[in-house]
């Protein structure tokens, strides 16, 4: 793991609504090293998706600085891969064309990389299938492959497995870790699933809501592949859960929950 790839300093984000302003994020400081896997966890409304969208360049209305590879983020681009909660594949394109998207499969280099990625996300035999013919897990794997094709410096995943059933989700977590270890792509994954956060990450960032602030950062020093049933895993999980519960209590006592 190298130097800091992503540097977020004193990030503030407000949403202006008709009635008042909502402070979505306040004083966020976070550094992510190259090759690191960071998960961001917090109750709904804590601004975790907002944070991810700011890193992606989809939201540029904030104060503070966000730098990727030393350069300020100006807008969305291929250096920041993004996987949305829904697969958001182009319904009129086949799997392989979705992965290539605006690039031509007739380009030998693109063709080779698409084939490689199809192999990586284990979708061989489905190259010519349309999104409507895929299961939720398969579609999400296509969208991960699509994000990886452009060799992003960082891959941002916004609750990518939120809509999947428990079995498929566990499967996808293994698949994602394998991709991470093969490609060594830096990843930030947003989730509300504590098990998922601990299972995947080098570091778990816990956000608290209203305003969205970093409550704690927990290092997960367990070797991969991890087993959810081991006592060391459970210990870390409890640690994160404790922090998380404090956050939830805060949210409830503030009366801002609902």
């Amino acid at each position: 793991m190298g130097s800091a790839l992503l540097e977020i300093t004193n990030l503030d984000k407000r949403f202006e609504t008709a009635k008042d302003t909502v402070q979505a994020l306040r004083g966020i400081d976070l550094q992510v090293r190259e090759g690191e896997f960071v998960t961001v966890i917090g109750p709904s409304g804590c601004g975790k998706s907002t944070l991810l969208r700011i890193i992606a360049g989809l939201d540029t209305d904030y104060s503070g600085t966000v730098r990727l590879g030393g350069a300020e983020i100006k807008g969305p681009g291929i250096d920041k891969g993004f996987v949305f909660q829904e697969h958001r594949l182009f319904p009129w394109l086949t799997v392989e064309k979705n992965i290539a998207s605006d690039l031509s499969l007739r380009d030998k280099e693109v063709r080779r990389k698409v084939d490689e990625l199809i192999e990586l996300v284990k979708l061989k035999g489905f190259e010519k299938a349309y999104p409507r013919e895929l299961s939720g897990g398969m579609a999400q794997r296509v969208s991960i492959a699509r994000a990886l094709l452009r060799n992003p410096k960082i891959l941002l995943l916004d609750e990518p497995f939120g809509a999947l059933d428990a079995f498929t989700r566990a499967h996808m977590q293994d698949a994602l870790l394998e991709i991470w270890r093969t490609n060594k792509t830096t990843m930030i994954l947003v989730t509300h699933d504590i098990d998922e956060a601990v299972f995947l990450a080098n570091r778990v960032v816990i956000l608290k809501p209203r305003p969205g602030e970093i409550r704690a950062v927990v290092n997960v020093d367990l070797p991969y592949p991890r087993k959810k049933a081991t006592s060391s895993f459970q210990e870390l999980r409890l640690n994160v859960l404790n922090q998380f519960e404090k956050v939830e209590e805060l949210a409830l006592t503030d009366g801002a929950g609902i």
Partner: protein
Amino acid sequence: MSQRTAAAAGRQPGKGSLAALAAILPVAALLLWEALGHYGMISELLFPTPSTIARAFVSLAQSGDLWIHLRISSVRALSGYALGGGLGLLLGLLVGLFPRTEKLLDPSIQMIRMIPSLAVVPLFILWFGIGEQSKVLIIAKSAFFPLYIQTFLGIRNVDNKLFEVAKVLGFSRFKQIFRLVLPAALPHVVLGARLSFGLSWLGLVVAELIASSSGIGYMMSDARQFADTPVVFVGIFLFAALGLLTDSLLRLLEWRLLRWKDSYKG
């Protein structure tokens, strides 16, 4: 792969029986009609029996008149469709893609849309005479609006979520239009093309019935003058058959272009 073709094949066998299902009503109506005419229960002058109509068709076809009229009508309908539909598609694209063009053009276009085609016929005849020009323009006016509106609508209905995907994938403006907006709008455009074609036929009949010296519509109004009812019916059936044929062709095109769509099939 094999699974999917197997599933597709599973739906195929119903096709023939479905066609038979669709034929039940028209065939029954024709038989009843023939029988009623045969036993003199309806006026042979106003309701010539299907067999009389068929004989009129055969004699028209043998004399060659039918093909001349048919060719003239088809050329008119197609050129009007190409002109009006093409313009509708083009302006729909421009107005859909560029909000400024929308502000500039759409209010005027909507105003013109409200004028019934029949109402502009006298004007077109005054301006362009009763030659081909006025007919093609009447057809073009009819064909313009469905394609224009559907193209415009299709573009404006593109899912904003897919636009975000295009942004994070770094699509250029050009690719945003050709790889995202146009394919996403295609279902609407194809529907517009079908509706436009239907209205082209309508425009053709209007143009030919009112002022013409050739074409299927003229053949019908000429026959009416001589109370030659079977020929009028031949014209009606021809319009129905041609309309059905062209619509099937367009539906085939639709099926080819929109195979990716996941929609309710009944």
